């Protein structure tokens, strides 16, 4: 398992990285933590001629919380997401999710940006970002623009990011209330058989004030379940409303047969996982 040859670049700033990317075009790939890209290159399913390593771009390594908004730099690792108390206070679901990604070594290297930007339906962060209603910041030759996580994913490995753009950060509102990231997997290190991210907040009347649900690895993109979320807000959280919300969410999924099991099984497991995630989030709300 040996990669093809390539030239290595380590720009010190994002503008330098974008300039390189513009210059090298299709022959270049950006590398963040590398734990998806390097194995792909070893199988020679990707053979870029240039690798642009973002590790020296210090401005991409940050976690800040201010004015009710969380802002995370793309090169922030999962280990850093887990370790940040500030982030845990602002959005505890991030730590809960990050701890279920891969294994300790991979979490030291794996980054938020890499996880959300490559469009692998197996990654956990995309659904999390949709659940958090995050906004992604993309920097390119023509400057910066933002795209909602809920509108970012087009198909497996296809996103709204232009080839010459770099995803630099994710921003999302501080989330009060209950949360849950439930993930069924075959073992530590595995992608989800089915996973669900849920945020719920309770109103003064005991009703459901806000709800947000997103699913991982149950279609070729993450799935934000708007209707299911709205259903909980409108009807409150009860066994019956959870069942309806789950039914609604299941209408959106399109799992495929693979080593984790046939689609029929995944549909059933996904419903159970989502139901549990809603219950847990509500119990914490």
């Amino acid at each position: 398992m040996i990669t093809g040859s390539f030239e290595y670049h380590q720009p010190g700033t994002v503008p330098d990285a974008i300039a390189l990317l513009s210059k090298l075009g299709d022959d270049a790939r950006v590398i963040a933590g590398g734990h998806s890209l390097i194995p792909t290159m070893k199988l020679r399913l990707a053979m870029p001629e240039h690798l642009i390593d973002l590790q020296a771009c210090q401005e991409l390594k940050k976690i800040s919380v201010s004015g009710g908004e969380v802002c995370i730099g793309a090169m922030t690792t999962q280990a850093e997401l887990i370790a940040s108390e500030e982030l845990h206070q602002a959005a505890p679901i991030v730590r809960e999710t990050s701890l279920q990604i891969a294994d300790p070594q991979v979490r030291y290297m794996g980054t938020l940006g890499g996880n959300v930007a490559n469009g692998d339906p197996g990654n956990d962060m995309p659904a999390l970002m949709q659940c958090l209603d995050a906004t992604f910041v993309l920097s390119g030759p023509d400057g910066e623009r933002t795209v909602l996580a809920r509108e970012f994913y087009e198909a497996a490995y296809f996103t709204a990011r232009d080839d010459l753009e770099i995803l630099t950060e994710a921003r999302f509102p501080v989330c009060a209330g209950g949360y849950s990231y439930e993930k069924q997997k075959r073992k530590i290190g595995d992608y989800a058989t089915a996973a669900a991210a849920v945020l719920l907040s309770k109103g003064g009347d005991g009703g459901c004030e806000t709800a947000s649900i997103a699913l991982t690895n149950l279609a070729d993109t993450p799935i934000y379940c708007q209707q299911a979320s709205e259903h909980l807000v409108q009807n409150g959280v009860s066994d019956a409303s959870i069942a309806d919300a789950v039914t609604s969410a299941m209408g959106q999924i399109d799992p495929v047969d693979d080593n984790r099991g046939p689609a029929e099984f995944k549909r059933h497991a996904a419903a159970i996982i989502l139901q549990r995630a809603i219950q847990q989030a509500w119990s914490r709300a």
Partner: protein
Amino acid sequence: MSATAESVQERRAALKGLGTSRKRVEDARFTQGKGNYVDDIKLPDMLFGDFVRSQHAHARVKSIDTSAAIELPGVIAVLTAKDLEPLSLHWMPTLAGDKQMVLADGKVLFQGQEVAFVVAEDRYIAADAVDLVKVEYEELPVLVDPFKAELPDAPILREDIADEKEGAHGARRHPNHIFTWEQGDKAGTEAVIGEADVVAEEMVYYHRTHPCPMETCGSVASMDKVNGKLTLWGTFQAPHVVRTVASLLSGIAEHNIRVVSPDIGGGFGNKVGVYPGYVCSIVASIVTGQPVKWVEDRMENLSATAFARDYWMQGKIAATKEGKILGLWCHTTADHGAFDACADPTKYPAGFMSICTGSYDIPTAYLAVDGIYTNKAPGGVAYRCSFRVTEAAYFIERMIEVLAIKLNMDAAELRAKNFIRKDQFPYQSALGWEYDSGDYHTAWDKALDAVGYKQLRAEQAQQVEDFKAGKTRKLMGVGLCHFTEIVGAGPVKNCDILGMGMFDSCEIRIHPTGSALARLGTISQGQGHATTFAQILASEIGISADDITIEEGDTDTAPYGLGTYGSRSTPVAGAATAMAGRKIRAKAQMIAAYLLEVHDNDLEWEVDRFVVKGAPERFKTMKEIAYASYNQAIPGVEPGLEAVSYYDPPNMTYPFGAYICVMDIDVDTGEAGVRQFYALDDCGTRINPMIIEGQVHGGLTEALAIAMGQEIAYDELGNVKTGTLMDFFIPTSWETPNYQTDYTETPSPHHPIGAKGVGESPNVGGVPAFSNAVNDAFRAFGLTHTHMPHDHWRIWQTANKLGLHN
């Protein structure tokens, strides 16, 4: 000479002999990263080899164009079958009497098959060159289902032997059929089944999996053209056999070949076979005159070297209505892949599958095994078990459960009712084995008591009620297993590998200052031989284990042995060690008698010395005797103190054990968790309890993997679906439970120290215990049997078919 103040007990403890949990001498090295594995070997001018492999499971090779690869700077050679043919090395014999392509000769028969061998200055260039070799294939229909192998439209896989009606193991009835092997009394068994009160039937599939040691297979060949000597380092569980095979294949005289097994990063059967990589590294070194290293990557390991199992076992078991078993019938369809490369003793094409009567007194039995070719990788190795014993144990332990269901009887009680009784040993089994010793009822009762079996059943019944009442979505399974292993192959009269009798050996040198060196024909792959064999010897010759060096693995120095697999090291080489030690002691006795001026018979052995009977103050320690053997002229006794023993075991040994697993199953997600696992092992005399416990933990974890998800799966086109550690299940520390270990001790009557071997028992017994727990969880809902591996989706499917999701 004054009597030492030390007591007998103190002196015995100082030996660190049998029964001591001696810390391992290997560990200082390994914990500091100073192990020496094959890929650590670095020689001047060493080249790297890498394979071009087939993407297709079945295809004709129309052409191979190596020109672009050869032109790549740094590429030294590209070998194809055409290059090997003049040396008659394009095919090689397998351990099972078949032959196997070293490099594709006209066609490929499985995905991952070796097509060409690139030799380059480093592994990076070699990998680039592999991509530059252009192979033109014509795809052929693929056969992956052994039950379709003999249908009229089945593709013929092995055109090279399509017309041969006779194979290495008798008649072949179809070009895709390898052998039929029959044991026992067919007519008698069928008659019993025809007349019995109760007959339970089931198809029990033991899926295809892989030993997957942490270190993959590899070799470094170095042909010294000046001296005409070939040195071959490699991941070999049987280095001497490799030397003999290398000599027969290459024509290099055996004394000019040195085979070295350095440290081995786990074997579990994967490293018994001879692989094309070994052969190609040798040829490449001969061709280039430079050392050549070949190390496979994990995908190559999983898809091309040595699978295990893939047995479809159709069973019938007959009993009285009271539950006394009368007969057992089994027909196995064995999927051997593209070449019959099973690692079994020559006369046993299905290994010791005939141990499938298990721990039970079954008066009549019949076994037939049909070997079949398919478009899958060759192999069929004993993955942490003696040859096909885990298949046999799984089969009988599932059939017992199926019978218990049919009889509506408790499965623990059914077992106890049919165990071979203590007074029946040595016991002749219906399929021809002589079980050496056992006390199954004692072990079983101890196990049931330890887990509180009756309470577990009560709890389980309550949980079923709760489930039916909608109070829980979890079920509980109690997995029982009482297994009997057959290990320590084996008596030379009926066990050989490529004609080499399956004895083993030990050579001992006692140094003048009273320390010792012992060399064996086996090779440790983590079992701790350097620690335990020294313990055997310490107890035999009275020299502290700390003063004994154990060496293995270098054919230039070690005596000829058949290697380490099938739990044979302790039963065979361990016996050789004890016997060689006894030769040392016998000579020491003569020397002591001379020194003490008494008759040999006036001496008795006491821990570490010979003492004059009735005069305890008069003695000679082994240390004193060792020195004397080198500096005294003793009439009629040769100088020095050395001995060698080649041990031909009179029988196999039959370790056994009682395992109980309690499992919790989530009916909705199919997730299963082990709540408790109790393992009682009886491996006869216990040499090092710490190491035994470690072996049991490891074997159980491999069993957990196999039972709960580990498989080599193919799609209908013969593509390997589980080729990396993402999909090939190896549990992490998180999925692995803590195990509770226990023991009874029933020595083997024919082994010099009574030891039976233990390394493979936990895998043999563990797989049925885990699988039975899953099956048992659903017994109350009408399940008779469901196939492994019990991964989430298959468990869910089982529950779904039983209507538990409605």
